[in-house]
């Protein structure tokens, strides 16, 4: 049943939010600390658990996939209701923060690739030495 998928999604969503709110109260700030992230982890764990038991049917998945396919339209709708008029004066910052951190991460790609290659070589060498 498709509704099972939607129900599990809603349950994970709520539990994550409650966890986030609770964490916020625990450290004494008025914020939802990481709620959506917790919800996502819960959903991955729940579906993995069901997958391992072969309970994950196509019908169940379609209940979640429907909502995940709606995320771009919802983001578009979200952008339509922002206070852009108030933000326009500092629009330069959007351009800078869109580009500079990304450029920096581009530079990190070859560095991290080399690191991981060196690492896997070392592991191989260790294995050879042991052999």
């Amino acid at each position, binding site marked *: 049943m498709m509704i099972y998928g939607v129900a599990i999604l809603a349950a994970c969503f709520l539990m994550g939010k409650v966890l986030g709110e609770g964490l916020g109260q625990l450290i004494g700030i008025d914020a939802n600390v990481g709620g959506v992230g917790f919800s996502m982890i819960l959903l991955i764990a729940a579906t993995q658990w069901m997958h391992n038991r072969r309970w994950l049917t196509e019908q169940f998945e379609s209940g979640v996939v429907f909502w995940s396919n709606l995320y771009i339209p919802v983001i578009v709708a979200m952008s339509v209701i922002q206070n852009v008029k108030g933000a326009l004066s500092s*629009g330069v*910052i959007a351009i800078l*923060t869109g580009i500079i*951190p990304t450029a920096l991460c581009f530079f990190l790609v070859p560095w*991290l690739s080399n690191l991981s290659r060196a690492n896997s070589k070392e592991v191989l060498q260790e294995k050879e030495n042991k052999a």
Partner: protein
Amino acid sequence: MKSLTDILIRDGLMIALISTGLLIALSAWISNRFTNGKIPGPAIAIFSGLALAYLGGYLTGGSNGLADVGLFSGFALLGGSLLRDFTIVATAMGARFSEMKKAGLPGVLALVLGVVVSFIVGVGLAGLMGYRDAESLATIGAGACTFIVGPVTGSAIGATSEVIALSIAAGVIKSIAVTIATPWAAKSMGLNNPQSAMIYGGLIGTTSGVAAGLAATDPKLVPYGAITATFYTGLGCLLCPSVLYLILRWMLN
């Protein structure tokens, strides 16, 4: 005639759904016709959305974008934080932790570095531009991750709508920049094998940009980049409004 407008306003969600559908269709057409698919349709749609929000603010003097125009009040529900967070959580469905194991330690390191470096540099830039409160700084830093992490962080910690709008715009610009720059920078990044594609996906993270950029570089690399990129938004939504925001708050006090 009055009754028709009444119905349209009362069932405003329908108008919002129809308008969003039209906007996305139009953006897809513009993307193919004028940019040869180089700028992804969703990016154009989100930017057009921001432009419409400006128009709404200009016409009504309100602070809720187009939702302040009676006929389009349904956008407040469709684009509100409830549906947004619900659909974003749903996107985690396809992800499997077992997939992440394939990317191994370098993949995890790339993900964490990707989120943290973008956040720190974003916060630094926002600070240079004169923002001083932890909420605005963290939201703009989160916007440097993706156009989803920004607004999710912003509404979780209570940032203003202007700052959230900036974080969306920053994320969209990142996604466009990634799409255009990837094929061009692929050689100097050594982006020609599955391992480096996974690291690239983790460091950059913006899913639509990563997929489009890799497709233009070498379609065979797309699934490898996608493995790590799918976890990026989730990790961003987890780290930015929690650990990273708290550290920032602590440093400012």
